[in-house]
């Protein structure tokens, strides 16, 4: 116990902290500018100077650690003088343009000068002028206003780990700049914007459009983009989201955001939003009333059901929609239509991988706390760059590296490059051999504990020598041994698995090998999740074989139980999964589809095939917020309320249920409400008046969410297992698919880019993200580009068996010569247009890592 005295008050402290923190904990205010609770201490602004007895000079409270018996004074004549002086000095160059500056009203310097500063300055010299920099599409710099607290630089380097900005020059000439000195060309997390205490670095999105005090409402909600589920605060004026900011202390992201979360909100008020229902009349979509649309849908579905049977109808739920939306849709299909044909695009990777891992380790095996990564001593990453797929999770891996942890990768990930991970780079299509080699060597080193018999059975059958690995994969015996040594030495081990592994040929076998490594190194598994509510959609039973809470439909006891609550008889026949739906639509056995909040034409590989299959349907209903590629094919388009306009819950990849809140008012209906209206018209009543009522029912039905309420969630009873529901240990025999492919010399393969600045096609409606990443490109390694005599910006045609795309070339200095990387975010220009696939027999994920392509320059 440490006792110190501040301003004659005795303060007792458990742990040694800085004098500043001690004072703040006791409610004593000490002004600061360069101090920020998240950042490394700096002691640069000198505003926090305090008097300490027996110390000859004033001390900076932010850097001085408390010592037992210390006597500190924070408000004396001398300190007031010094503060006045410092502020006067800062104002020599800081312009007094507050009436024009967006920061006014929430500016630390303004507040401090008002409280402690001199009435006026004594300096007659001209102020330093640095022109405002508008060279960047998202961030505006006003270096006149910079007070050199370096918070932004410490944020960028120390927490974000991007190191994109630095202090340039020295003394009076110093200022903050990105490398290019113009455009930022960085990760655009905007975390520098959050920490800037003055108006030197600000967002351009809301420039001069409102004042901080005009924000009347703000809502703490969850980001709509990826599966991390960061807390964001929406600030609203006149029903427009003016700004999205993070919240210090929030559980998942603690004051940090990524580019999508911070700058991607503009899709909410986009002018491309659908607002009235559309019905296809004479081949074209025409505006209609809600009544017309809903009666038509109910009638058509009713007809198809009675003519062809319930299983001629299928539905697609959405990892972008809330749990409530998804629950109501699957209930509608199971009850009002009477089919188990319901699935989501989580099937393209996340769903299969998760159930595969859970089958080995038990339910909830992938529900691990994201911040645990930073505390792991060893993190292994494979199959995707976590800093672009799940940026905030990526930060935790960077934090692990910074704390001296081992970050190990299989493959090269740009976002981790400057953290110098220990990496293995196997030749194309030889990852499996490498992983077999690792498992063999690790088993020999660590031995088997006998805890998981089915898995150990598999591990025992794997025997690949290091020499074999070296011959096949090109990873030397020495490299492999060093890698395995690190794995064996790990005490708190985590493994992060991305979609590329899941979506590769032999994906389930790779997952088994990774599970084996996890088991041998006694670690935890993290599955990257690309969309906000992938986990939730699965929890809600949006799967052809599972009822809400993962109760198999094939077990009569469950179908009976759920049927009793829903007042209906449920089908025990497992439905069609995503890919079977496409096949059935092609064959004509599937007649109608209800697509909610999803753009399958773009988001399922081999888009051309999906498109053809959808055209073959008798009746297609698409419910969305934009007129997507899929919606354009629909017979009825139903406009829904989107994120920011409705209440509900998302469940993130940690299985944390979080509240999504309505921030702005918009005319229209939530997804669940539209579905409920249609159900009513088909003779099945769903009388929910608000999302919370739907959640009550979920909590009643699903054993996973047992008795949870919105209040419980807000109180923090929101992390799996909820209310102590025990894990179900389901160790069945492990099935694997060992398909393999070998590389053909000189061939080019398609690689799917998972960019930081886009997510699905939703982000293409956010103007700022489009400014950063404006159009689809084909990325090609510098070597290959030279071979094909391509230069940056050339237009090429990329062809595969499945289709062709015309794209601009972007040359990657460090890119490999075997692949062309294309993102799948731009409608009609997505990589999935080219991606012919085979399915993994176990995870049912599409394997798209061996799509051969050719590239040719388009001559003007």
């Amino acid at each position, binding site marked *: 116990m440490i006792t110190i005295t501040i301003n004659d008050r005795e303060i007792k402290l458990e742990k040694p902290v800085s004098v500043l923190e001690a004072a703040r904990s006791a409610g004593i205010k000490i002004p600061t500018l360069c101090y920020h609770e998240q950042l490394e201490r700096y002691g640069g602004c000198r505003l926090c100077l305090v008097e300490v007895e027996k110390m000859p000079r004033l001390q900076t409270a932010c850097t001085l650690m408390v010592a037992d018996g210390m006597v500190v004074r924070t408000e004396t004549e001398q300190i007031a003088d010094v503060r006045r002086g410092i502020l006067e000095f800062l104002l020599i160059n800081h312009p007094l343009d507050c009436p024009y500056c967006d920061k006014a009203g929430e500016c630390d310097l303004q507040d401090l000068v008002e409280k402690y500063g001199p009435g006026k300055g004594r300096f007659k010299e001209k102020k330093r002028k640095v022109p405002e920099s508008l060279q960047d599409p998202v961030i505006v710099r006003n270096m006149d206003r910079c007070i050199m607290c370096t918070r932004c630089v410490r944020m960028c380097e120390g927490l974000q780990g*991007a190191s994109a900005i630095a*202090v340039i020059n020295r003394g009076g000439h110093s200022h903050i700049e990105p490398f290019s000195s113009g455009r930022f060309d960085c990760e655009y997390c905007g975390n520098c914007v959050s920490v800037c205490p003055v108006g030197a670095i600000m967002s351009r999105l809301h420039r001069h459009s409102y004042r901080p005090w005009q924000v009347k409402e703000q809502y703490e909600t969850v980001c709509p983009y990826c599966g991390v589920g960061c807390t964001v605060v929406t600030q609203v004026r006149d029903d427009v989201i003016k700004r999205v900011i993070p919240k210090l202390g929030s559980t998942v992201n603690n004051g940090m955001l990524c580019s999508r979360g911070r700058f991607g909100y503009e899709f909410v008020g986009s002018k491309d939003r659908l607002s009235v229902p559309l019905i296809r009349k004479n081949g074209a979509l025409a505006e209609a009333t809600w009544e017309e649309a809903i009666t038509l849908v109910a009638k058509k579905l009713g007809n198809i059901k009675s003519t062809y049977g319930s299983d001629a109808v299928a539905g697609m739920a959405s990892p972008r929609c809330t749990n409530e939306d998804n629950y109501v849709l699957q209930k509608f299909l199971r009850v009002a239509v009477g089919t188990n044909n319901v699935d989501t695009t989580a099937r393209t990777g996340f769903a299969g991988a998760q159930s595969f891992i859970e089958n080995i380790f038990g339910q909830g095996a992938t529900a691990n706390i994201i911040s645990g990564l930073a505390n792991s001593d060893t993190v292994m990453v494979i199959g995707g760059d976590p800093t672009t797929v799940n940026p905030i999770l990526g930060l935790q891996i960077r934090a692990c590296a910074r704390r001296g942890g081992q970050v190990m990768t299989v493959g090269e990930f740009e976002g981790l*490059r400057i953290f110098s991970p220990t990496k293995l780079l196997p030749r194309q299509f030889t990852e499996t051999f490498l992983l077999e080699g690792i498992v063999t060597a690790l088993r020999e080193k660590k031995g088997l504990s006998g805890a998981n018999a089915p898995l150990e059975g598999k591990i025992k059958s794997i025997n690949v020598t290091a020499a074999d690995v070296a011959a096949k994969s090109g990873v030397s015996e020495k490299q492999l041994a060093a890698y395995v040594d690190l794995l064996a030495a790990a005490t708190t081990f985590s493994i992060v698995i991305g979609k590329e592994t899941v979506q590769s040929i032999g994906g389930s076998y790779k997952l088994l090998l990774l599970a084996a490594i996890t088991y041998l190194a006694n670690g935890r598994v993290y599955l990257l999740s690309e969309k906000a509510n992938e986990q939730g959609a699965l929890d809600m039973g949006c799967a052809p074989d599972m009822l809400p809470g993962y109760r198999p439909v094939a077990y009569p006891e469950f179908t009976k139980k759920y049927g009793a609550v829903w007042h209906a008889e449920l089908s025990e026949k497992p439905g069609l999964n995503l890919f079977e739906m496409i096949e059935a639509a092609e064959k004509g056995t599937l007649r109608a589809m209800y697509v909610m909040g999803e753009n399958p034409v773009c988001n399922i590989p081999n888009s051309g095939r999906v498109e053809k299959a959808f055209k073959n349907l008798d009746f297609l209903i698409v419910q969305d917020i934009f007129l997507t590629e899929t919606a354009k094919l629909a017979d009825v388009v139903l406009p829904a309320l989107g994120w920011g306009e409705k209440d509900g819950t998302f469940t993130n990849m940690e299985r944390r249920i979080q509240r999504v809140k309505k921030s702005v008012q918009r005319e229209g209906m939530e997804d669940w409400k539209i579905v409920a209206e249609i159900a009513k018209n088909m003779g099945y009543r769903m009388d929910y008046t608000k999302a919370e009522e739907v959640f009550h029912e979920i909590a009643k039905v699903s054993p996973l969410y047992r008795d949870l309420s919105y209040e419980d969630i807000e109180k923090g009873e929101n992390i799996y297992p909820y209310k102590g529901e025990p894990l179900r240990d389901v160790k069945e025999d492990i099935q694997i698919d060992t398909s393999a492919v070998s590389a053909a010399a000189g061939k080019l393969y398609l690689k799917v880019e998972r960019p930081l600045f886009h997510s699905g096609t939703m982000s293409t409606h956010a103007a700022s993200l489009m400014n950063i990443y404006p159009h689809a490109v084909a990325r090609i390694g510098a070597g290959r580009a030279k071979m094909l005599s391509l230069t940056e910006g050339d237009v090429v045609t990329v062809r595969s068996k499945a289709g062709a795309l015309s794209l601009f070339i972007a040359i990657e200095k460090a890119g490999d010569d075997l692949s062309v990387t294309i993102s799948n975010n731009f409608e009609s220009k997505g990589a999935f247009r080219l991606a012919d696939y085979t399915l993994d027999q176990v995870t049912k994920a599409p394997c798209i890592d061996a799509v051969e392509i050719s590239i040719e320059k388009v001559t003007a």
Partner: protein
Amino acid sequence: MFSSAAKQEIEDIRTKYPNARAALLPTIYVAQREFGWLSSEAYDAVADLLNVPKATVRGVATFYAMYKQKPMGRHLIQLCTNVSCMILGAERLVDFLKITYGVEPGGVSPDGRFSLVIMECIGACGTAPAMLVNDDFHDNLTEKKLQEILEKYT
């Protein structure tokens, strides 16, 4: 890109320091020598080789006065015009350089041969005026002697 000799030199430098950041200053010197000045390519090369972020490399380099932030002549004249040198005619030498070689303080001669930087005392007051040409020291300068010396640097 660095020549392989420069790469080797940097690798040797790297071994003398505990981490890449600590090796930045001498590495930037090598880059400056290889590229002539600290161009964007020079920064890229240092950043790639040491695996230190580009912005950080530039931040470090711009802190110091002795790194060249703009293209320089083949030879660098650092002429002192502080008190002793000034009294003994250094300013005439500045004019002479301008007339004879067309190089102004802080500038480059049109033929790219010389750069001129005015120094604040190089510690040769006893034999003023004095200058450094690249790493060579010259003192007791007169216009004639200055020209004779500079003719040796082509």
